[in-house]
């Protein structure tokens, strides 16, 4: 089920990317897209009644029904990468704002 949430967020993100011209909103849409992707990734390793893959006291690893840890590790990485891209995107957006006093790409038009 959780996949639906992921895919829905992905689609919402894409919709945002397709429609808005506002730079900040574009970045937000991108973040939504990434978030959706991350949720989707997490969902890939989902196990019914699974536990977080952290060993706790006195229970051997094979008795527990862990979810797949690898997608979680990947998501961790993906989040940070998304964060980096977002930070850079915002910086670029600010630069554009500094130049044109607007975040709206349709106002800026084609920069030559």
């Amino acid at each position, binding site marked *: 089920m959780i996949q639906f949430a992921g895919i829905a967020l992905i689609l919402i993100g*894409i919709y945002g*990317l*397709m*429609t*808005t*011209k506002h730079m900040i909103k*574009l970045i937000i849409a991108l973040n939504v897209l990434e978030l959706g992707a991350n949720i989707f990734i997490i969902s890939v390793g989902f196990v019914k009644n699974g536990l977080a893959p952290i060993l706790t006291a006195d229970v051997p690893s094979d008795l527990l029904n862990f979810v797949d840890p690898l997608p979680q590790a990947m998501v961790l990485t993906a989040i940070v990468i998304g964060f980096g891209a977002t930070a850079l995107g915002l910086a670029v957006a600010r630069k554009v704002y500094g130049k044109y006093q607007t975040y709206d*790409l349709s106002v800026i038009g*084609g*920069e030559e």
Partner: protein
Amino acid sequence: MTMIFIFLGLSLLLSYVLSRKQPTLGAYFTIIASLAGLISVYLLRNSVGVTESFYYLNFQITTIGWYFAMILLTVYFTSAFFNPFWMDELIYPAAYNSLYLLSLVGTIGLFFAQDLMTLFICWETAVWSSMLIVQQGKSRQAAWVYFVISAIGSMSTLFAVLLTMYLSGTSEITGALTYFTTAPVAGALVFGAFILAGLTKIGIFPFHVWLPLAHGSAPHTFSPVLSGGLVKMGAYIAYLSVAVFPAYQVFGDSLKIQGVPLPIYGLMILGAASIVYGTLRAIQQEDAKRLLAYSSVANGGYILIGILMMDQMAFAGGLMHLLNHAVASAAAFLAIAAVAKRTGTTKMSELGGIIHRMPITYTVYLIAIISMAGIPPMGGFVSKWLIFQGLSEKGLILLATAAAFGSIGSYMYVFRPLSAVFLGQLAPKYEHIKEANPVMVTAMLILTAMSLLLGVLPNLVLKTIAKIQIELGINPIIVNGTATLTENGSVDMLQVFTVFGFGFLLILILFMVLPKSRRVGLMDTYTSAEFIHTPELLHYGHSFYAPFERLYEKWPSVLPLYKRMSMKLSELGEWAESFFFHPDPNRAVLWIVVVAIVVIIGGAQ
């Protein structure tokens, strides 16, 4: 043979170095280098069949290759005499000289190529080096059009070459091309691609557009090479694609018109079209060089038809016309160049009466045009005669008509510069010009002598052509002493020449016997009861054939078609740019989605 290439390669570098120091020196060096090339290639005449490899290029001496190479070298050699005098007009003289020799290397290599790769490499080398020369002339556009049309040819050759190599598994020309006797369908494709290259390079309608542009605006010294020399590369390709490539076998099953398979007949019709078109356009031109360029288009048609006929007469005629046209056209271009050197223009309406200052140049031009128009006793007659005989023997009446049209039409256009440039009233501004430089005159006289020699003793060349025909297994042209015999007619050019001389002598005597005339100035002319006071105004170089031109001045030209095509391509590019390369992230994401949908929908099935 490899030595020749190495020598020419080295002299190319040397001429560059020399030209950097002193452009004229390098230009003189091109004369020496091309002469050395000429002599050394001439010495190869008995070593037919020798194969040599140079790195990954393979060469083989063949009779036909030797013949073509000799033509080219002659043209290059004689045109080189003009190089030293144009060095100050060019801004890259060193590049000019070395590229001049490089294009020579390329063309010679093409004719001696033993494998298809070598053929193509040499072809391209000649094309781009000559293009870089053309750009030093008056027009970049011309050089560009030249390159583009050549590139159409090059790429289709490349396609043919690679497909042939892939299918036949060999790259050796004869072996690879004869493979297609067993694969006619692929053969047809390869033939089409191959001959396209020939058509573009000869300048056959509708690929002729580059000729007037390139010939008309190339440096004056290089126009003869373009017209007399490089165009012949296309003829060689045409030769390969019909003689070495088993075209008549490949199209053996197709519909035949008077024994000629339909595809080949179609090509001949193109040749005929270019004869007619070239003639009509040449008649219209106002610039002497462009006029000669269009005449090259028309003559290219003869050459193509001749070669495609693959018979006793027309084939020999086509091959001989190559030489005749090369010599005559080079001479004509050189004469115009000599005039341009003195007067600074090639526009016919700005010239006139030059004969009174440059009589030798005039004579050279006269002989050249007589040969080009195919009037005895010059070389052009023999080859055209052979083509006519061949065509009428087969009964190809449409082609023969076109050939006749081109022939008679050529009187009109060759006379035009003769009258407008050399004859008529001498403009006062050219009162003090001098005859061309002796070096230039030498070159022009060599070509003139050749034209005459070829006309009087055509068998010197026809012997070689007969050898080629025997190698190809077709009925050779019969050469008997000074007489040339064919199945349906014979001619003895020496006799014709003698009789002609006799007639001339008779009249000369008559003229001498009659009272001597008094020399008067050009202004002392009777004109509708008026006397000429303003010769400039009465120049008749402009719209010389106005009544005739009026009949077809509205006919569509081909160049706009290409321009429109280029525009359409640009528009398509613009569309692609604005459609797919829109500077808007939304649009790009939209495309991602669209592609994703397409793939999913398509793949789901």
